[in-house]
């Protein structure tokens, strides 16, 4: 009787181990899979919560994305349109803390992010739309002003008397030299902003465009 109970217990233990192994095979890490967003819909999330940036900024999406909201040294214009990856958000928060130390927000304007991506990426569900900004790697930042510490728009050429070139250049330099798990790939800005470390892009008279290197690689 004791033996039978042991056999049954062992049998059920083996079945459970087998099921666990099968489960692990089914729920393999999405970082290593080629599954599309749709294929994962309805499947229980994998144990990892690291953001996956799928595709490209022009034709992509996100999983496990996070929302960027106001934080120390950073003001976010529209948090419902500001979803990105966890590593990028962590880097930005670190950047914001350093910014607030260097430039107290009682005297200087905070870093101002106007738009990133919609929740889970893809096209924005409501206007304005973008050609890029589809997978959380593209962010729009305001140029910084010299006449107020409050967040305020800055557009060339109308507001150029209030343009703080040096402050904006310092922000560009800090973005280009982030010491964290996410790196900036390129920054596009208006020629009127006269910034170094950027590419001159058409338009962009009221914001500069920052593109991050995909922190989880470009193969997914």
């Amino acid at each position, binding site marked *: 009787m004791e033996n039978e109970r042991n056999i049954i217990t062992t049998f059920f233990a083996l079945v459970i181990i087998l099921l666990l192994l099968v489960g692990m095979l089914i729920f393999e890490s999405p970082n290593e899979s080629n599954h599309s967003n749709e294929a994962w819909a309805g499947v229980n999330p994998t144990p990892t919560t690291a953001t996956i940036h799928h595709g490209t*900024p022009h034709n992509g999406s996100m999983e496990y994305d996070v929302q960027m909201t106001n934080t120390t040294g950073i003001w976010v214009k529209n948090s419902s349109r500001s979803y990105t990856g966890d590593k990028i958000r962590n880097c930005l928060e670190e950047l914001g803390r350093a910014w607030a130390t260097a430039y107290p927000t009682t005297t200087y304007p905070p870093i101002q992010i106007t738009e990133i991506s919609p929740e889970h990426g893809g096209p924005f569900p409501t206007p304005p739309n*973008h050609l890029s900004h589809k997978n959380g790697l593209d962010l*729009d930042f*305001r140029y910084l002003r010299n006449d107020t510490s409050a967040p305020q728009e800055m557009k060339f050429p109308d507001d150029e008397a209030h343009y703080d070139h040096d402050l904006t250049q310092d922000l560009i330099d800090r973005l280009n030299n982030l010491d964290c798990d996410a790196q900036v790939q390129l920054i596009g800005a208006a020629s009127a902003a006269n910034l170094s470390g950027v590419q*001159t892009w*058409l338009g962009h008279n009221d914001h500069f*465009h920052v*593109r991050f290197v995909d922190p989880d690689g470009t193969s997914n």
Partner: protein
Amino acid sequence: MNRILPIFIITCTFNAFLIAEDSLRARRPALGVTRDRAAKTWSLTASEPGIASPKTIFRSNLSLDYASWSSDGSYLAFIVNGDFYSNWDENQKKWIDGDVGQKLVIMNRGYKQVAEFADIRRYCWSPHGNRLAMIAGQAVEVGLGFTPDKMVVYDVDTKTQLEMPSTAYDLCWAKHDNIIYIATFTEKVAFDPVRKSKIDILYHGIYFSDDGEYYYDPSWEGSEFGIYRTVNNERLTPPGSLLNREFLHPYGWLEDSHCLVIWDYDSKKSHIVNVETGKSVTVDAQPLGQIGAVVRRNEWNDPEFCADTAMLESLK
């Protein structure tokens, strides 16, 4: 007689070439925008050929852009940039972006205003006749700077207009087939202004060379630049480095050529590049008119400069 005929033909051909070159150099008044920082005003000026001082034809406290003549030179158009705002709306609990004063102005050859259209963000003259295609939209602080809401085709001579809802953010009126090519956030399509119908297309871009042999897709919002052969959508990789870049927004095609004009913001010079050979020449002049429109060979900010036939031949 047998000896005279070839000499006569050669003489006629040579004279025709000289006349063509002369007509190339015959200029419309050069348009320019100047800014008085103290008075906070912007002026549109026209420099008549042979007259030293330019004439101010429009003044505004808003900035001015993209002045260009219609294809036959009867009219000119330019954009007045609106005064941008971004205000928090407590009732809607959201930011409301917009601007005041954005418009397109059309003048005749006597510099008298004949029409204006509010909220126009981009426009393109028809390659034949005096019609304009234009995109209207509302200003936003992000992305391309506006949310498109309609497209208008306006005939300046007859003062008639055709209006249609559209989410196109860019347009180009091609010379080779007289079709208006449109870029929306999701697709490239075309509009036939004669049949007033939409045409589905498979092209990757909307900017065609005058003969329609090539087209390109510029780097809007950091998208990848590409040049294509129209007949088969084959992507070109011309020799030389000027066109082999991931990000490039050319000023436009040079008229009646296979050359692109690239404006270098840093050096303040233009590069004229043949897309077939990759050969290029650098010039100290900036094209006039809206970026994306075909660059006329004799319409630059330097009235003395002309991209003449000899220059284009040297790039083949």
